[in-house]
C-alpha cells in the first residue's frame, strides 16, 4: 500500500495529508500556548494594578470607579455567597428561551424568504424597517402588555436574536454554488433532495457564525428589558443597586454579565468543533 500511495502522491502532484492524522491543523504554527495564556494574563494584571493605583490615590470619585477590593467583595456576596444566583438564573432563562425562539423564527423566516419570492417581495421591506428601529424602545410597551415577568424580556431577546439567524439562513439557502446545483440537477435530484443534500448543509455552514451574534444580542435584549421593569434578573440588580449608589455591586454585576457572554460564546465555538462535518460543514 505504501508504494502505491507514493505513486499517488507523485501523480497527484501535491503532498497529501496522512490518513488518520490531523496534519493540517498542526502545521499552522502560531504563538506558543504559554504566550497565548501568559500575555493576556499580564495585561489583566497591569490593568487591575493601574485601576488599584487610580482608586487608592483618589484620582476618581469612588461613586464612578470603586476600588477593585470593593468590587471583589460585591462579587463575593453576589456569587460566592450566592445572593445573585436567582437573578442569574432568571436572566439566563429569558435569554436562552429568547434565543431559542429567535433561532427557530429566524430559520423559518429565512427558509420562507429564500423559497418564496412573493413573500419576500411582500414582507421583506417591513422586516428591514422593523430591524432599523431600536426594538428596546418597545420594551416599556411590552412591560405594560405582558407584565413584570419573564415574557417581555423573552420577547425582546427573541426580537433581536432572530435577525442575524434569518439573514444567515436566507444566504445559506440561496447562495448555492452554481456548479454544485448543476450537478444536483444532472443526477435528477428533486426539490426535496436539493434541500436535503445541498441547501440545508449549505445553510448550516452560514448559520453557525450567526449563532454567537444571536446569543449576545439575546443577552442584551433580556438585560435591557429588565432595566425597564423587572423584579428579578441581573438587569434588575443593576437598577436596584444604582438606587442605592452601590457602584461596586454594579461593577460586579457587569463582570458577571461579561462572563456569561464569554462562556456562552465559548460554548458555541465548542459545539461547532465537536459536531460532525455532516452537521456543521467546514
Amino acid at each position, binding site marked *: 500500500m505504501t508504494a502505491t500511495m507514493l505513486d499517488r502522491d507523485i501523480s497527484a502532484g501535491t503532498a497529501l495529508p496522512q490518513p488518520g492524522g490531523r496534519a*493540517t491543523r498542526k502545521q499552522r504554527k502560531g504563538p506558543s500556548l504559554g504566550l497565548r495564556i501568559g500575555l493576556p494574563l499580564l495585561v489583566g494584571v497591569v490593568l487591575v494594578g493601574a485601576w488599584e493605583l487610580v482608586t487608592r490615590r483618589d484620582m476618581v470619585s469612588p461613586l464612578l470607579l470603586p476600588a477593585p477590593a470593593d468590587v471583589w467583595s460585591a462579587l463575593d456576596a453576589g456569587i460566592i455567597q450566592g445572593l445573585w444566583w436567582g437573578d442569574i438564573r432568571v436572566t439566563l432563562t429569558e435569554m436562552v428561551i429568547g434565543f431559542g425562539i429567535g433561532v427557530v423564527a429566524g430559520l423559518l423566516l429565512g427558509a420562507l424568504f429564500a423559497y418564496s419570492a412573493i413573500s419576500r417581495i411582500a414582507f421583506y421591506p417591513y422586516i428591514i424597517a422593523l430591524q432599523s428601529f431600536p426594538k428596546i424602545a418597545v420594551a416599556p410597551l411590552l412591560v405594560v402588555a405582558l407584565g413584570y415577568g419573564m415574557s417581555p424580556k423573552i420577547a425582546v431577546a427573541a426580537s433581536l436574536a432572530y435577525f442575524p439567524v434569518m439573514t444567515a439562513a436566507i444566504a445559506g439557502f440561496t447562495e448555492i454554488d452554481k456548479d454544485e446545483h448543476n450537478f444536483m440537477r444532472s443526477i435528477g435530484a428533486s426539490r426535496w433532495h436539493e434541500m436535503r443534500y445541498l441547501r440545508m448543509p449549505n445553510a448550516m455552514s452560514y448559520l453557525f457564525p450567526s449563532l454567537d451574534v444571536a446569543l449576545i444580542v439575546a443577552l442584551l435584549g433580556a438585560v435591557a428589558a429588565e432595566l425597564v421593569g423587572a423584579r428579578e434578573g441581573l438587569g434588575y440588580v443593576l437598577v436596584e443597586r444604582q438606587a442605592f449608589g452601590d457602584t461596586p455591586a454594579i461593577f460586579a454585576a457587569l463582570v458577571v454579565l461579561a462572563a456569561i457572554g464569554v462562556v456562552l460564546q465559548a460554548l458555541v465555538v465548542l459545539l461547532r468543533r465537536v459536531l460532525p462535518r455532516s452537521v456543521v460543514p467546514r
Partner: protein
Amino acid sequence: MSSVMTTHDAPPATTPPTGRAIVLDGVSKTYDVKGGGAPVTALTSVDLTLRAGEFFSLVGPSGCGKSTLLNVVAGLLDASTGQTRIGDRTVSGPDRATGIVFQKATLLTWLTIEENVLLPSKIAKRLDDETRARADHLFELAGLADFRKRYPSELSGGMQQRASIVRALVGDPDVLLMDEPFSALDEFTREGLNDELMRLWTDSPKTVVFITHNIAEAVYLSDRVGVMTSRPGTLKEIVDVPLARPRGPELRSDEHFYELVSRIRGLIGHHHEGTNR
C-alpha cells in the same frame, strides 16, 4: 446493457460496443440576455454523430460554445433548435444514464468521498449491492480506496477530480460528459489523470464527450477530435486519431501524435484569424 462487473481486458473493438450512440441533429442555441441586450448565438446548427463507445473530444477557443453543446447533450440546457438523441432516447432533461464531470470537482464538502460517490445512486434509489461493488472496484482502480472515509477538503485537487470521475461512473452510465475536467490541475497531475481516465474507460467503455483546451490531451485520449470555432460557435472540422490503443506515455513523443497535434493547432489558429477578419 452489458454485465457490469466483467473486466474488459481486451481493447474495446473486440468486445461488443457499450455506451450509446449520440446524434445531434441541427442543434443550435441562442441565449436570451436579461435586461434587453442582444441575444447571444452560442451555437449554430451542429450535426454530429458519435459511435457507441467512442471517445470524442471537443477543442476550441473560449466562448466557442463547447460547454453549451455539452450541456445540451446533458439535458441541462434546452437547445433553441434541433434534436439530440442518445441511443433511442431523445434528450429532454437530465438522465441518470448520463454521467457528468465538471471543471470543478463539485464534491459536497459535508459528505465523505464515499458518500459523495454514492449520492447519485442514493437519490435514484438504486443503492444496491451491485452499485456498492462497482464503487469498490472504481475506488480501487482510481487509487482512492484508502480515502473513501475522508472529506473532500482533505484531498488534493487531483484526487478530488478523480473522486468526481468515480462518482460519474458509479451508476454505470452509457455516456460520460466531461467539461474541462483537468484544466484546473497542473500539467503533471493532468497527465497522470489522463492515463487513469484511459484505464477507467478501457475497463468499461462509454461514449465520452471530453472538452479541453489542451490539444495534446485531446489527441492522446480520443478516437476523434472535433474542432470548434467561435463567433458564432460552429463545429468546423472533425479530425480522426488513428493511433493504436492501448496508448501509453511514450505516445507523447510519437511522431504521428505530434503531427496530429500540430494539424489541429493549425486548424484552430487558422479559423481564429478567419473569424477576426
